[in-house]
């Protein structure tokens, strides 16, 4: 749940990057960390295994700027993608104001994407949250790979995006689509704050 301080006019929102293992969630955060001026981002915290895979979460706070007179701050988290880390995924998901689902565009990863999306729904439901009520953006990462290996945006939309959510083709390593994804999720999350009594 976003934290709004009316007297200091500040908003803090929690955004979680979700998706299967090695789909590029941490890469999104690293790219943002590298591009955002130092005075507008905090320490990047990574709880990773020896092989650099996310163990618990990666965390990056950024200062978005002033919106409608509110200093707006986003806390970006990424969860571990591997199936067996579901317990920690659930913990990181607690209180999320928005979710970016980072899908791996490779055709052979389609089942993992679907499984992870279902896992997102299940974990939210377990916390009493309907996935339809949470701002969600899909990012189709690794679109830079050879066309014969990947699915195109329309194909991925058909397979994963039956609710017509915003979706962004991306190549997080080079940064393509990272900004658009953040922009899309920011707009969705903040739009809720501009509407009446969101629950």
């Amino acid at each position, binding site marked *: 749940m*976003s934290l709004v301080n009316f007297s200091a006019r500040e908003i803090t929102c929690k955004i979680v990057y979700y998706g299967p293992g090695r789909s590029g969630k941490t890469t999104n955060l690293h790219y943002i960390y590298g591009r955002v001026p130092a005075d507008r981002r905090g320490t990047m915290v990574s709880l990773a295994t020896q092989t650099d895979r996310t163990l618990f979460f990666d965390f990056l706070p950024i200062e*978005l700027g002033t919106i409608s007179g509110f200093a707006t701050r986003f806390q970006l988290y990424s969860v571990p993608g591997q199936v067996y880390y579901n317990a920690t995924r659930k913990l990181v998901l607690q209180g999320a104001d928005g979710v970016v689902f980072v899908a791996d565009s490779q055709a052979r990863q389609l089942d993992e994407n679907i499984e992870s999306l279902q896992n997102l729904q299940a974990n939210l439901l377990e916390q009493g949250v309907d996935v339809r009520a949470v701002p969600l953006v899909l990012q189709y990462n690794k679109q830079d790979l050879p066309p014969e290996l990947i699915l195109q945006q329309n194909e991925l939309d058909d397979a994963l995006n039956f609710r017509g959510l915003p979706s962004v083709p991306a190549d997080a390593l080079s940064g393509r689509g990272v900004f658009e994804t953040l922009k899309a999720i920011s707009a969705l999350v903040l739009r809720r704050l501009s509407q009446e009594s969101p629950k």
Partner: protein
Amino acid sequence: MSTMRAVEGWTVKPLERFVNEAGARLTLLMTPAGQVLAQFGFTRAVDVMAAAALGAAIVSSTAEIARLLEEPQFSALNHQGLRHGIFVAGFDSPRGRLLALVVYGTNSSVGLVQLFFEDFVRDLIAACPVPEERRPVLAEDFERELNQSLASLFRS
């Protein structure tokens, strides 16, 4: 010259009293999702957020261990270092569950922190206002400003 900062004003007095009595170096009051309500002792806002994220993670992971062990939720945790101790605890309030992360040095002790933490929780519960209905925060036309902010953030 105060290093105290509260997002929600009702937390200030209880927090002031607690840090004075317990001799805490740093204290963070936050939600289980890691959103900070008040802090004392941190000099950079960003370090606060990293500490809050990690503090919330400690609490939620031990809660999960408790669940696996079929134990009731742990009420507090203490890590004792050579020069600093870290005390993390959760409690229920009219605002829902809240967490506190306390860092103390050699001029305090886990006993003192625990002792005054009980008072801190009592003071907070007494001071906590009944949560209001959430109301719209941002103007309808916030998106132009959002685009500008994001553009300047990415220098694009």
